[in-house]
């Protein structure tokens, strides 16, 4: 089994039982028309990328359920035999969040989006590690935005409905200082986010943080 070590240069996470309200989005996206089009996942991504001081470079993004609010709106339109909103449709693809982030930051580098169910954050880490072998600094980002009406009937992902984790990483040859864990220590955390969330929780600002990713 191949392993690749990553230095976590900066990390951040944010979550809320229903809707995260600390996103500072008015300052980060001053243009109202642009701001109004953003999905919840896009707002979380913009907030987190700012928190880890990343504006240009390759991004590996992950979400198990993607843009669920836009998807739910489309489902309702179909069910009600109404036309689908073009904005909801364009905002329903899984790569919406980082596309808006790239537009905002004029970031023309590679953007990849992973959706691997409960393994999403782990696969973001693996893909980030593979790409980091090229020598650049990458942003690894994972979000879930599950806050739609009636979600309680189907939610198996955790108590909190909005989650986001960001890791700014680069390749390292140093010994690992962090332990990879997908143990469910916090039932509020969706499985799809947990692998990166657990790393972020271990990171210390006064130390070099290294994680070993097993492929």
């Amino acid at each position, binding site marked *: 089994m191949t392993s690749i070590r990553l230095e976590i240069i900066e990390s951040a996470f944010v979550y809320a039982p229903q809707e995260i309200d600390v996103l500072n989005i008015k300052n980060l996206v001053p243009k109202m028309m642009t701001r109004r089009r953003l999905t919840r996942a896009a707002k979380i991504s913009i907030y987190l990328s700012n928190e880890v001081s990343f504006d240009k470079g390759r991004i590996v993004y992950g979400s198990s359920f993607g843009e669920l609010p836009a998807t739910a709106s489309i489902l309702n339109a179909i069910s009600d035999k109404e036309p689908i909103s*073009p904005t909801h449709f364009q905002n329903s693809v899984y790569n919406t969040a980082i*596309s808006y982030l790239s537009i905002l930051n004029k970031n023309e580098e590679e953007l990849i989006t992973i959706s691997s169910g409960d393994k999403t954050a782990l696969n973001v880490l693996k893909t980030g590690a593979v790409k980091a072998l090229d020598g650049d600094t990458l942003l690894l980002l994972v979000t879930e935005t599950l806050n739609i009406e009636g979600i309680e009937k189907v939610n198996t992902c955790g108590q909190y409905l909005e989650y986001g984790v960001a890791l700014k990483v680069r390749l390292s040859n140093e010994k690992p200082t962090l332990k990879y864990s997908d143990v469910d220590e916090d039932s509020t955390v969706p499985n799809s986010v947990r692998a990166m969330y657990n790393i972020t929780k271990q990171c210390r600002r006064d130390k070099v943080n290294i994680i070993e990713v097993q492929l």
Partner: protein
Amino acid sequence: MKTKNRVYITSTSSVSCAGNNNQILFQNILTGTTGIKQDCKYFFNATPAIGKLDTQATFFDTLILECQKVLEQSQLENYKKTLLIIGSSVGGMKTTEDIYIDTKEYANINPDKHHIQVIANCLNEVFDFYDDISFSTACTSSANAIGYAYEVLSKGLYENVLVVGADSLSQTTVGGFLSLGVLSPNPCKPFDEARDGMNVSEAIACLLIETVPKEGSIEVCGVGYSSDAYHMTHPKPKGEGAYKAMEKALKEANLTTYDIDYINAHGTGTEANDSAEADAIVSLFPHKPYVGATKSITGHTLGAAGALEAIISSMVIDKQMIPANHALESATNKEINLTNELQDKKIHYVMSNSFAFGGNNCSLIFGNIK
């Protein structure tokens, strides 16, 4: 990227509206026999032309059958050392739609049957893969999957990779593209002055990718990625993002523009895509390689398009035949080399383009190893 291993497509299988196997698909592309038909089932009063699979089995049973075909054609005993890479834009959306329209309740929806991972989960129930990962970048999903396969194999990180591009039609996709006003009621006419939109369609395309060539293998020579950073649904008007992806793929493959004999264009038939892509091709390729678009035959298979068109590109190299652009009558951009006739010529390298919502661009280069 420091390349270590060379990477080859060694076994493929596909099913699309243009054919239930690769041979029928390519024959239909050569003869201009389209799989696109008008359909009024999907959305209200509209009758867009779309491409549906013509199979007895369900979509997911067909998916398993296609992967089984690849395994039988290969020299592998099983997939135990294989990394499965999925490329899909909608995953289990149709299943969710069917339940929700019937009951208008989330309670009966199984989240594990909704998301993109449903495809890998379905295959993991039958085959034993080393690991799996699913990419969802809209219409570049399976092109990015092939790009990632190229990366991990050239870096020597896995033994072999099965790339599966799979998307089924749903009301979300048909109605969504209708809402954007880009669906044509006829088979699309990529790059033509009279083009009036695209055709959404469904497909499954599977490629086994390895580091040791077999007889008939096609090399994956390089991949280039870029982002437009411009608009969610419109490409940069002059195709700057497409240009950058193609340029990066050439650099990765250690090739020049003059090495490319044929470009399998993204060529959706929409005003915005074809104009931007044509401008990018004209800017980058001074020697005017042949350019073709096969979506008038297959439709736009969305997340499966990159994988399906990788198979088509491989067959162009294998058969040494460049298909005619059957739907083309008069090109908008006269500077790109769109042929109306089958070209029988020596083909060393083919570039295949895929572009997606969010300005996600991926160009792949395939090479002849004969």
